[in-house]
């Protein structure tokens, strides 16, 4: 008769398969042959690490939500500008030349806001660059700058740069804690 296969032994902490002669679990480091005190202190330490990781994850998700809100606000601003421009310049033959770029930017920023929950850094960096290039075109077309316009541009750029900064922090936290 063939010998019966040895029963599978599992670790008490991570429930992964282990060998009978193991002193420590090869997967989580649980002291299989340690004293009761050693084992319970290992478990409580592990719980603390899990709790800490969950806290960080919550913080990261919170920040990502805030960043997405900034992008959605900008999208709303562009679409609002397009709508106001449309009613103001209704009789002007160049109305479409004003409305279409703003509408286009609005849609792009909506997409960026939606996608920023997954890839925040990509969305903020490309959002900032797109905005700067769009403003450059605008300034070249209408060189008479108003104070209000400049202040708006600066505020939007500051918001986007802050978004990039927190996206970088998110990436750093993700890398340090192996959260994907």
């Amino acid at each position: 008769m063939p010998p019966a296969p040895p029963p599978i032994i599992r670790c008490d902490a991570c429930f992964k398969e282990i060998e009978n002669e193991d002193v420590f679990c090869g997967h989580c480091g649980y002291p299989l042959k340690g004293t009761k005190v050693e084992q319970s202190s290992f478990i409580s330490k592990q719980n603390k690490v899990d709790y800490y990781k969950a806290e960080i994850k919550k913080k990261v998700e919170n920040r990502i939500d805030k960043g997405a809100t900034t992008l959605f606000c900008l999208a709303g601003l562009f679409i609002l500008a397009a709508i106001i421009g449309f009613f103001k310049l209704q009789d002007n033959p160049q109305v479409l030349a004003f409305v279409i770029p703003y509408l286009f930017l609005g849609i792009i920023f909506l997409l960026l806001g939606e996608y920023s929950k997954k890839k925040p850094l990509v969305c903020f960096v490309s959002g900032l660059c797109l905005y700067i290039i769009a403003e450059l075109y605008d300034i070249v077309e209408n060189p008479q700058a108003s104070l209000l316009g400049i202040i708006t541009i600066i505020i939007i750029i500051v918001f986007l740069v802050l978004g990039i900064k927190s996206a970088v922090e998110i990436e750093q936290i993700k890398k340090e804690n192996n959260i994907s």
Partner: protein
Amino acid sequence: MLPVDDELPDKKSCIQCGKLIQQNRDFCNQCGARQSVQNSTKPVNSWGLLQQAGLFFGIDIVVCALAQFVDALKTFSFFLFSDIIMAISAVLFFCINWKENKILLTWHNFSWQKLAAYGAIAIAGQVLVHYSVDWLNLVVYSKDEDYVQHLNGSFLGAFFVVFFTAVMPAIFEELGYRGYLLQTLLKIADKEQAIYITSFLFAFIHMSFISLFWLIPFALFLGFVRIKENTLWYGVFFHFCFNLTACIFQLL
């Protein structure tokens, strides 16, 4: 009989007690020591690195914007000047981290088949772009056309066109974007995000909203090739073939 797993190659020795343990274990099952060296590298200053990358991109975008928007600078000498500035900036930034970046200039996995395949994809891509742009009847204003304007006619002119639109961008844009920028962003974010950001930024410096539809896929392809092959040279060759085909279309 059960296989004797001592003979399997997937064993490593514990970093603390030296006993043989399985390759995929995080802890030694004899002494309990953690096997992975956790975050042994010094912490990366992500925000500082990103600002540095911003400076690199800022120089390029200022030069490109000047060439694009200021009518007084639409001269041949300024085009020459802007190309030289961008080339120097790419080389300098690439050399900031020479120790880590020099590996990109090696070419261990050289193969004629791959090179030919990339060249063929580049030529096919350019033909597709050329005809789709023609078909959409869009006028794409680019620096290349100005070179053709200034240098048309002679053999030497054609040589300069090829040099400034195919050779220079292929080498220095690859060095700057797929070299320095991608390498820096890989330290800050994951692979995918780094490739996406480099591609978008690369597309933006061309200052043409219409061209984005082919520039972004083109740049994404180059980014993935660079990551996959771990060398800059396939990208340089691909970029060269792509631009050379465009040159030939314009010269004909």
